[in-house]
């Protein structure tokens, strides 16, 4: 089919209409608008559509290639499921409107055919997601400020990179777009450096990641479903656009993220905070795939992006239902919910098996591709690191599942997910299983058709079962010590106060400087006023007397006249 409008248009329209038309109709429209994106982007042939002039530069609002198409599919599915889930979870109309605005701007970012469109929507994503966080109020407000600050820095760095890139190449367009440059990716020497930092903030690079676990546990649990997938995955997509040929350093950073995120997750008791660290860990696999580059690694990275959209949002939905029904955020306060919440438990275990990379679920396929790519390139360190991250993932989900759903008893009446939440969760869970079949996966991911990667080999299966097995063993060993772990500090423990005090000193410094300048100016003004209002006294101070009469008496007047005549005569003669 031919493209009709850029995909973000109906979604943003739904976002604008939602608060107006009423909660029920608005959510229905939101589900339809986002769901419609799925067949729409699937059926539109590859190419760049809707050329426009954005701020006076050439830009394309709808660029379809295998990568953006896959992103669009995932965003459409999760947008629809998330909107349905929000409706069922009593999210108010404004919250879902902000969420749909966030979905729409994310669609705008991934379907932009140029850096300008991308950064434009990138910044709007930061705005809409901040509003989504803020809307919840309470603790979310301060976290929202820190979130906005992080994304402001990210956007600024990326913008600087894009401007630098423009200076090098003379265009904002991507390489695949008509009129675009010959080579893809960020050009020059400085632009890539700025881009990797800017995108790295959004992607959750180790050290730049603290905003993820800081922010995502705090807003409404339905809001977390959206937040958990759109920003970080769009960042991975942006990373690929900036570095289509990869970079080894980026690959190693991915490995570090995988291990660091999984380890930190293991130490958490707040359910959503635990999941938030897994966002970083999972993004690590994707970043590693992008960094490794090559057909298999890139396909693995994007496959993992796609799968992550499914299971990560599903995990947040399941935890959301637990929070919704019990009002508890901490693992220590819940337990044995599987018997009371079978639907939720089912969905959770599907998602957990997916994220842990258990054979038969979608995570197994894509994670296996990334790990396999590292193996084939003989990057043994990276390979072991990624495997270790897999063990940590398995371990932490066993912990989460065990404490929330299996171990112990929960006192009190608990109902299962309501029909809307159940429908959303089960459909996404079904997709997790469906894409566990390599053929289905390969149909969606970029370059999937040409892949000769066999998923179900003995080695891979050993790997998959082995990771989960090691996880089980590890959990058995670590169960006791893990219980005693309190809140583990992250890097933000250091830089939050640092930023706070630095800002404070800057503000105090500026204020003091202003005051100093002000004092000087006021003194100068006072002195001027004194001279002007009493020139005689001022002149007197100069000569050391009480005051001098500056009024010319008659003789002085005549003297002045004589001098004036003399001057005039000298001048003209």
């Amino acid at each position, binding site marked *: 089919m031919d493209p009709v409008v850029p995909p973000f248009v109906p979604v943003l329209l739904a976002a604008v209409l939602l608060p107006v038309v009423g909660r029920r109709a608005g959510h229905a429209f939101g589900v339809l608008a986002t769901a419609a994106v799925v067949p729409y982007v699937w059926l539109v042939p590859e190419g760049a559509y809707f050329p426009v002039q954005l701020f006076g530069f050439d830009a394309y609002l709808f660029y379809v290639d295998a990568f953006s198409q896959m992103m669009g599919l995932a965003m459409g599915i999760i947008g629809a499921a998330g909107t349905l889930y929000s409706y069922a979870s009593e999210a108010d109309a404004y919250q879902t409107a902000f969420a749909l605005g966030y979905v729409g701007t994310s669609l705008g970012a991934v379907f932009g055919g140029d850096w300008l469109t991308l950064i434009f929507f990138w910044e709007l994503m930061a705005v809409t997601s901040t509003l989504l966080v803020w809307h919840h109020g309470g603790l979310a407000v301060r976290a929202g400020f820190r979130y906005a600050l992080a994304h402001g820095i990210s956007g600024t760095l990326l913008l600087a990179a894009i401007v630098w890139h423009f200076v090098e190449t003379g265009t904002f367009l991507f390489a695949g777009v008509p009129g675009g440059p010959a080579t893809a990716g960020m050009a020059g020497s400085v632009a890539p450096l700025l881009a990797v930092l800017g995108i790295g903030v959004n992607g959750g690079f180790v050290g730049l990641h603290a905003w993820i676990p800081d922010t995502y546990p705090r807003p409404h649990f339905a809001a977390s479903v959206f937040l958990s997938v759109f920003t970080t995955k769009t960042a991975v997509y942006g990373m690929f656009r900036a570095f289509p040929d990869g970079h080894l350093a980026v690959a190693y950073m991915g490995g570090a993220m995988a291990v660091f995120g999984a380890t930190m997750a293991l130490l958490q008791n707040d359910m959503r905070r635990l999941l938030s660290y897994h966002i970083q860990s999972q993004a690590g696999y994707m970043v590693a795939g992008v960094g490794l580059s090559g057909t298999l690694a890139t396909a693995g990275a994007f496959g993992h992006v796609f799968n992550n959209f499914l299971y990560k949002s599903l995990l947040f939905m399941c935890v959301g239902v637990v929070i919704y029904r019990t009002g508890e955020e901490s693992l220590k306060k819940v337990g044995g919910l599987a018997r009371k919440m079978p639907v939720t438990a089912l969905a959770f275990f599907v998602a957990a098996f997916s994220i842990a990379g258990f054979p038969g679920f979608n995570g197994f396929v894509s994670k296996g591709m990334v790990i396999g790519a590292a193996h084939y390139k003989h990057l043994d360190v990276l390979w072991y690191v990624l495997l270790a991250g897999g063990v940590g993932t398995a371990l932490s989900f066993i912990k989460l599942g065990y404490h929330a759903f299996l171990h112990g008893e929960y006192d009190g009446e608990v109902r299962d997910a309501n029909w809307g939440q159940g429908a959303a969760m089960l459909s996404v869970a079904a997709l997790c299983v469906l894409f566990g079949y390599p053929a289905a996966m390969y149909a969606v991911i970029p370059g999937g058709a040409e892949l000769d990667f066999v998923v179900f080999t003995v080695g891979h299966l050993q790997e998959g079962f082995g990771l989960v097995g090691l996880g089980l063993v590890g959990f058995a060993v670590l169960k006791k010590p893990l219980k005693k772990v309190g809140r583990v500090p992250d890097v933000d423990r250091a830089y939050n106060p640092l930023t706070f005090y630095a800002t404070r000193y800057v503000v105090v410094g500026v204020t003091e400087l202003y005051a100093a300048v002000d004092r000087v100016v006021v003194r100068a003004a006072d002195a001027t006023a004194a001279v002007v209002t009493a020139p005689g006294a001022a002149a007197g101070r100069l000569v050391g007397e009480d005051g001098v009469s500056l009024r010319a008496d008659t003789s002085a007047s005549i003297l002045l006249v004589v001098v*004036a005549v003399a001057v005039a005569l000298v*001048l003209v*003669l």
Partner: protein
Amino acid sequence: MSDLVALAVAVPIFGSLAALVAGLVRSESGWPVAVVACVAQVAIAARLAATAFGDGTITYVVGGFEAPYGIELLVDGLAATMLGLIAVVSLGVLAYARRAGPRSNPFYAVYLLLVAGLTGMSVTADLFNMYVFLEITGLAAYALVASGDRGRSAVAALKYLLVGTVGASLFLLGVGYAYIDTGTLNMADLATKLGDADPTLVHAAFAFIVVGLFIKVAVFPLHTWQPDAYAGAPDSVAALVSALVSTVAAYALLRVVYTVFGVGFLANNELAHAILVGGATVSIVAGSLLAVSQSEVKRMLAYSSVSQFGLVVAAIAIGNVTALMGAVVHLVGHAIMKGGLFLTAGLVATETGARRVEEFDGLVRRSPVGAGAFGVLAVAMVGVPPTVGFAGKWYIAVGAAESGSWALLAVIVGSTLLTLAYFARLVERMFFREPSDDLEPAIEAVADGGEAPGASLGMRATVVAAAVAAVALGLAVFGYSQHLQPTIEVLLS
């Protein structure tokens, strides 16, 4: 018809004599005589102006001695403007002086003599004759300043007399130098003969005449007589002198520079031009700064005049059609505004006793008419559209831009800010502050020693009329400038 020109000079002289004689019959009978003379003067000026603007320049040869030997009188658009201004202002001040005084017959005799001198300066086309009228004007002005009964008036008048006489003498010296080589005193005749004269004599004549007139105009630093004279004189005298005497002196400067010496002289003598530019610039800046530093309102107004006449001299120095148009408009506008401001200051002093800047706090409650008129006139003086103050400055600034005198343009535009500096603080005090303490209305004893009662309707009406005129004239400037343009083009040819 052209006898009217002679009558314009003769009527005030006869009026002056009549006022003196009437005083022998009945004391305090000078005012009606002066009113009759001034009304007649307004009628004559109106008739002459209508003819001058309608049919062109009027010339009259006194006593039948043909020019260049006899004395020629000439009324072009410029002179007609001055005639009208002198007649209207002197009549307006009379309306104020009815109650405010002074009231003696000699005062009104001298008053009319001043009008005669000013009128003569405006209409004469003879350089020596101009000196004669300059002296008449000067002597009358000294006497008027001295009509205040305080010692301060007498001292101010003496200073004015000494400095002013030196100025007039310098003017006469200049005229003499011009006469030596050309043997003529008629302005038009001089203009043709000066070209072939000894340059040293011509230059000396220019220097003496310009410095002499600078004293009369009160250009910094030759202004020293002026603040004392204005502040020391009775309010009605201060208004009349500030509105007309320097104005006509500036007119004389314009006349002498362009009719006698001509555009070519300035173009060929950079340094002669520099004297005008320098005097203007220094006057604008120094006058404003000195005005800011004054604490007595009348002295502040006096220094304001130093600055405003700097603007006029600047326009004369620029010397293109637009700038000279601005000079004339600003001369008229300044006369109305400054005369009005002095009268308002007098009205305020009569009603509330406030004569110093700090006493103007919250004036609007105590003297609403005075504060209102003062505010309007101050705003007009700053040059806010559509007042006449704006029109004059606008023409001068445009003229400066046309001639490419960017430094002068900066000073002219800056002068608006400086003007704002000294008027804004008064406006702020009058309208936005609480009155500090009640001042007793200071009854200023007039020259005759009579107890001056409170403000009269005539005083208030004059003040309000000045404020209305300051705004209304601004609207009339465009039509007027079209009528004046031919005169200025002739002047510059």
